[in-house]
């Protein structure tokens, strides 16, 4: 009895006792022995995923710039063909670099300069006709980037020789291509430089989980990119998910004028996201990523590890996309239901990313004070 009373008096001791009891019944699947090195995860993502993505991007924009300048010395079918190939390559590199819209990329406004669609062809034509434009201004946001090139390279003449002739007769188009390529190249190069000269170091050292931390940014910005630029822009909006008429809007498809790459770009876009999530390099080397962090936390979904569930959803979406019988420009019209299924698959991925993953990691979504005690 005395012992009992003295135990009651010693709250601290009581805590320890109860603690031991509770620890016994600990049922979380977390790996209690280890501890996760977020810094090495961030280092891997920075050095093997993000910086290489910007490296490839700025290399391709350099090529685009050189090839558009080449047109000034006389355009030819060959040059146009080469430019078209480089354009596709650049668009592909973009899919792997687009989602890191923070730090240098957001300083440079990369997302708005590179690949917003649909573009306004009248705006592009008006600019070229007047010859008086500054592509860096916000007013030109619908007349620039890889999607403006899509129109200029595929929307005017389909035959390369015809287009080469057209350019020769209308050198304003060549100037516009050069200006546009210069803009993209400057932005990509500046972003790469931002990363290699300082930002990379602060990125790998911001190891918290608050909103200013690197993980906080990867998750918050990454999910926003996934929702807005992957799910909505690439498939949802063109398939008519957001319009009250319910009818498909093929003009909203990425690379509409090319009409043959949008399927591939959607798949690449999802893969680009997975590379960040899994910490994988483009050559497939596996490194530490968000998946490993989830593994460490022991988060499950329907009895399986959450990271497997996330990858499975994304693989499903990729397979469904590849199974479409035509490029998205036709598919949103002819296979609207299948396209809506891809949208739903991505929607379900959002649930896992935005709800389960974010919550398991305790990531904050806002700077504003939360309730405290």
């Amino acid at each position: 009895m005395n012992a009992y009373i003295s135990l009651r008096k010693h709250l601290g001791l009581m805590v320890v006792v109860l603690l031991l009891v509770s620890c016994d019944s600990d049922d979380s699947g977390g790996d209690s022995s280890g501890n996760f090195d977020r810094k090495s995860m961030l280092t891997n993502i920075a050095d093997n995923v993000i910086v290489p993505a910007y490296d490839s991007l700025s290399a391709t924009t350099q090529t685009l710039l050189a090839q558009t300048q080449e047109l000034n010395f006389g355009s030819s079918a060959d040059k146009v063909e080469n430019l078209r190939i480089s354009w596709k390559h650049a668009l592909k590199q973009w899919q792997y670099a687009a989602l890191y819209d923070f730090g240098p990329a957001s300083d440079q406004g990369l997302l708005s300069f590179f690949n917003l669609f649909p573009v306004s062809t009248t705006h592009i034509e008006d600019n070229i006709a007047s010859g008086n434009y500054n592509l860096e201004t916000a007013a030109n946001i619908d007349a620039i980037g890889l999607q403006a090139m899509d129109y200029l390279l595929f929307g005017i003449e389909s035959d390369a020789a015809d287009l080469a002739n057209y350019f020769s007769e209308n050198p304003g188009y060549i100037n516009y291509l050069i200006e546009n390529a210069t803009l993209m190249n400057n932005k990509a190069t500046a972003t790469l430089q931002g990363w290699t000269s300082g930002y990379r170091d602060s990125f790998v050292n911001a190891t918290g989980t608050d909103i200013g931390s690197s993980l906080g940014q990867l998750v918050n910005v990454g999910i926003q990119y996934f929702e807005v630029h992957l799910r909505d822009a690439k498939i949802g909006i063109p398939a008519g998910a957001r319009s009250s008429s319910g009818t498909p809007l093929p003009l909203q498809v990425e690379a509409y004028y090319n009409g043959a790459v949008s399927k591939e770009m959607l798949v690449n876009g999802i893969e680009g996201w997975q590379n960040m999530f899994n910490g994988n390099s483009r050559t497939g080397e596996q490194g530490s990523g968000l998946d490993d962090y989830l593994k460490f936390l022991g988060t499950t979904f329907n009895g399986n590890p959450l990271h497997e569930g996330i990858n499975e959803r994304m693989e499903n979406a990729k397979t469904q996309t590849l199974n479409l019988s035509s490029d998205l420009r036709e598919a949103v019209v002819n296979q609207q239901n299948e396209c809506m299924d891809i949208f739903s698959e991505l929607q379900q991925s959002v649930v896992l990313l935005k709800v389960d993953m974010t919550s398991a990691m305790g990531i904050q979504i806002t700077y504003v004070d939360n309730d405290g005690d």
Partner: protein
Amino acid sequence: MVIRRIIDRVSTAVQKTESTAPLAVFRIVFGLMMLSSIIRFWAKGWIHELYIAPKFYFSYTNFEWVKPLGDPGMYILFALCGVFALAIALGFFYRFATIGFFLTFTYIELLDKTNYLNHYYFISVAALFLIFIPANRRFSLDIKLGRVQQAITTPAFYRILLMLQLGMVYFFAGLAKLNSDWLIHAQPLKIWLKAYGHWPVVGSLFDSNWLPYVFSWSGAIYDLSIPFFLLINRTRPFAYLAVIGFHVMTAILFPIGMFPFIMIGATLIFFPPVFHDRILSILGESIEQTVSRVRLPSKFIRVGLGVFLIFQILFPFRHFLYPGELFWHEQGYRFSWRVMLMEKAGTAFYYVQNDEMPRPLFVDNREFLTPLQEKMMSTQPDMLVEFAHFLKTHFENQGVENPIITADVYVTLNGRQSTRFIDNTVDLSNVEDSWKPKRWVLPFDDEIIGL
């Protein structure tokens, strides 16, 4: 008989004469804290972010008339609120300032449920009390200006009122922690503390599975016991050290802004009057020979305050009137001092459909809501309904006739996997948000035992 005796004892206690200094110190601390809160809020750009930028605001039932005042209206409102706070601290036109502060502050808090915080509720309640507490009878500009007479003594009533209120905040916060998630699973702290695994030296502690238990249990014990330890003379100094330690810790670990410091300042009221007299004399107060003394408020006000206190004791228990798990449906969650209790997140996909549309339209929430609003809405049923009503009006204006608004909502609570939150076949635009149980919230498919 027993009740009679209790009433007698209470009435003796509250009439006991003591120094007016604690009230003045509380007034000064409160005013300065509020002023700095408002300056901080302003400096962080939150006035624009929370009260000017949003296109839609989540109103409280019966307070739909509380509307944001735009730019520069909101800035003027905050400026007024700050001026009132300063006037409270200075004891300058004190009664007018307390009324002004209470009204402006409460108006701001009623603008949007998104920004509900228990500590804002506490501030509104404390401001309401201050209206009836003559805390300007010591060390105030009102005395200097001859607006009121200095008064050295007061019935203990006012100080007891403040101590009761503060004690209640802690005690209810402690009661709310007596549940299986908090005590047996150490959730949500198990999730939150992992955020600090990268700290040098102590990082590995935060990655451990036992530290959350220490924090959970000591947090609950602290909240439940601290009001009593603060009341007892012998334990008070240690208890106050615990107050400082506890709140500084929470300030470091969690993004909870000014609240820890407000509590550290406010709990000074538990110290005996002589302590506050010393503070005032250090501040350079001069005491004049005076016969004036503070009186009890009128019986009408005393009864009013008593009823309000009883209301506050009962109101947090209203959730027992609702079937299901409180943490899940959140009916009866607000205004109950449930602080830092859950890691809850969700996402809501809204659909608009009518007879003419070939397929439902998928609403883009971002078009209307800020990320914070979207996050808060996704886990709180009454907000889900409010947004559906907004969408109905919006799409009717767009020419969609008789729109049906449904939502697919997925929510995770304290580390459980996400599950569907509400019946996705219910037309939310037809649901009225009321005190009645929200049957369309799907049952929680786990159990949390406790209060």
